[in-house]
């Protein structure tokens, strides 16, 4: 006996399987990035309405200086967090890089040499973090809390309460120069790097590997990914980004003290998490992180223009962060309860 269609029924029409369940446009409209973009636009409009000084191209250009360096580090941090790790030593790396550049400048090194020293020390610090995590198998949060104090401690050891400020005049270009009109060198650099980071995360094998490791490191390992090596590379990248941030910040301040870039790690992680990157790793997008950087910059600058005290400002930023992370969980719980009831 053979299997046959029930008598009387027509031959079933071929089932149509759509390529996508929802249209790309609709998918974008309901995405985290679209809403972050809407938040950014709303903050922008609100700032423009609230302060007569906001809509001034030079003022806006000035405003970018406050968050550009941190955002550059955030681009690299996004990869680390997506891979399920974290790097809390970025502020310490900036301090150590800046100190090394200051000592090199005092020894008479020119601007290109100083940049090389900054990036080199940053990469070396990152490599050390990477080896601690990938080779010794330390949890990254512990390893980098340790190196956070270690790097800044070395900086304090070298400088104490002293200051290094013998930087060549053209070194300031990295922190104070303009690439085109009111577009600062720092900001132009950030825009270019975000494009590179976006392509690297969403269009390359490397980007896919990073997310695979973040989703399930064991599965990634058994799929043939060189998990340890990729982790080391990620930490070297945050080290390099911190080195670049150190070059810019040092150029902007024109001086180095060991307390430079204190507390940056939290601001950087805030940008990444606000950008929709899962703190457990595995998911997130680069446009989200870039827009989150803008949101943070616009909110703090806008509140600053209104002379809102810094304490209130940190309350706003803290509430924003908790809200964006906790609300989906709370709403999800409420919906589930309604469904089961």
């Amino acid at each position, binding site marked *: 006996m053979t299997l046959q269609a029930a008598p009387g029924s027509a031959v079933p029409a071929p089932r149509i399987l759509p390529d996508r369940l929802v249209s790309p446009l609709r998918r974008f409209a309901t995405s985290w990035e679209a809403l972050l973009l*809407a938040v950014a636009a709303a903050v922008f409009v*609100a*700032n423009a309405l609230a302060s007569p000084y906001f809509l001034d191209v030079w003022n806006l250009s000035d*405003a970018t200086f406050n968050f550009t360096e941190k955002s550059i580090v955030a681009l690299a941090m996004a990869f680390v967090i997506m891979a399920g790790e974290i790097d809390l030593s970025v502020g310490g790396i900036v301090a150590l890089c800046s100190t090394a550049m200051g000592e090199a400048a005092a020894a008479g090194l020119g601007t290109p040499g100083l940049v090389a020293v900054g990036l080199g020390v940053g990469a070396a610090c990152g490599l050390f973090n990477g080896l601690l995590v990938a080779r010794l198998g330390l949890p990254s949060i512990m390893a980098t809390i340790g190196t956070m104090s270690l790097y800044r401690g070395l900086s304090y050891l070298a400088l104490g*309460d002293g200051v290094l400020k013998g930087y060549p005049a053209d070194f300031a270009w990295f922190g104070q120069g303009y690439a085109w009109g009111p577009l600062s060198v720092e900001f132009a650099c950030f825009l270019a790097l975000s494009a590179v980071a976006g392509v690297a995360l969403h269009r390359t094998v490397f980007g896919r590997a990073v997310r695979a490791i973040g989703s399930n490191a064991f599965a990634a390992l058994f799929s043939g990914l060189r998990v340890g090596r990729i982790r080391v590379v990620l930490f070297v990248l945050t080290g390099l980004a911190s080195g670049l941030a150190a070059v810019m*910040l040092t150029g902007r301040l024109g001086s180095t003290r060991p307390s430079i870039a204190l507390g940056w790690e939290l601001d950087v992680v805030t940008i990444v998490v606000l950008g929709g990157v899962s703190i457990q790793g595995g998911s997130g997008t680069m446009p989200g992180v870039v827009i989150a950087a803008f949101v943070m910059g616009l909110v*703090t600058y806008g509140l600053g223009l209104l002379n809102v005290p810094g304490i209130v400002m940190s309350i706003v930023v803290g509430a924003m962060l908790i809200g964006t992370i906790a609300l989906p969980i709370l709403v999800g719980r409420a*919906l589930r309860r309604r469904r089961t009831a």
Partner: protein
Amino acid sequence: MTRLRTLALSAALAGTTALAGAFAGASAARAAEVKIALVAKSLGNGFFEAADKGAEEAAKQIGDVKIVYTGPTTTTAEGQIEVVNSLISQKVDAIAISANDKDALVPVLKRAMARGIKVVSWDSAVSSEGRMAHLNPSSNALIGNMLDKLAADALPDGKGKIAILSATATSTNQNTWIAEMKKGLPKYPGLDLVATVYGDDLSDKSYRETQGLLQTHPDVKVIVAPTSVGIVAAAQAVKDAGKVGQVFVTGLGLPSEMAGAVHSGATKSFAIWNPIDLGYSATYLAYDLVKGEKAAPGAELSLGRMGKVKLDDGDEGAMADPFVYDSSNVDKFAKVF
């Protein structure tokens, strides 16, 4: 999950818009008034709140002045740079700043001056190329000497070991005072300085550093804290350790925060200039410059009820001598600041 995140962000969106709207009403500025920004090292520090009171007093006295009192949350140079950036954007007429870092603030303050804003520093100085004039609350030598004297006064016959609890290792003025204090020590042969620790102007860290000090140097008789945050924490640590009467805390502090320590006996006496006078004088100095007076070596500028200040070769001037507070007067001043 996407839908939920959408909901969350919509809520955040509504929140920010409402917030910005709420502040919008407050920002309407009147024309033709002189806007003077008083920038603190950090907000939430009683000293700077008191200076703000003085600035408001000067503003009321002058008439057409509006004070913008602001500062970062933590005592960092980067935080102050953000604040100064936003003040430049607001086109204030003058900035009077107590600097967290005398060098790092120079580039941004230079930019402020290039855009026509008068810049003076007060309390904690900015390097000379980053400001037009600096107002010292007192002269550093007098403060250093006063700290030595306070330490000697706390000891029965002026003899014993002393230690210093400072703010951060990079604080401009604390470091200057400590240097002056060390310079003046030979005049007090009984005093033996054994340690300097840093509480970073944070209450909890200062408290822990004091506890550590009491353990590592049990023979220290006087702790000198030239910071209004550190002195309170140190007095509390001494009291909690049950060492009142054996170890005395002195230094620079605010009467309102120190009244308890004076009554408990942890502190015999301490000193401070009057921060209200300092905020008042800094505002007056900034106003003088806005009205066209020139800051130059030898210039004499009006400080209103505080008289005149004469600028030295580095365009610096001193306001007054530090003032000593003890059980006889601390309660009276505790009500003021």
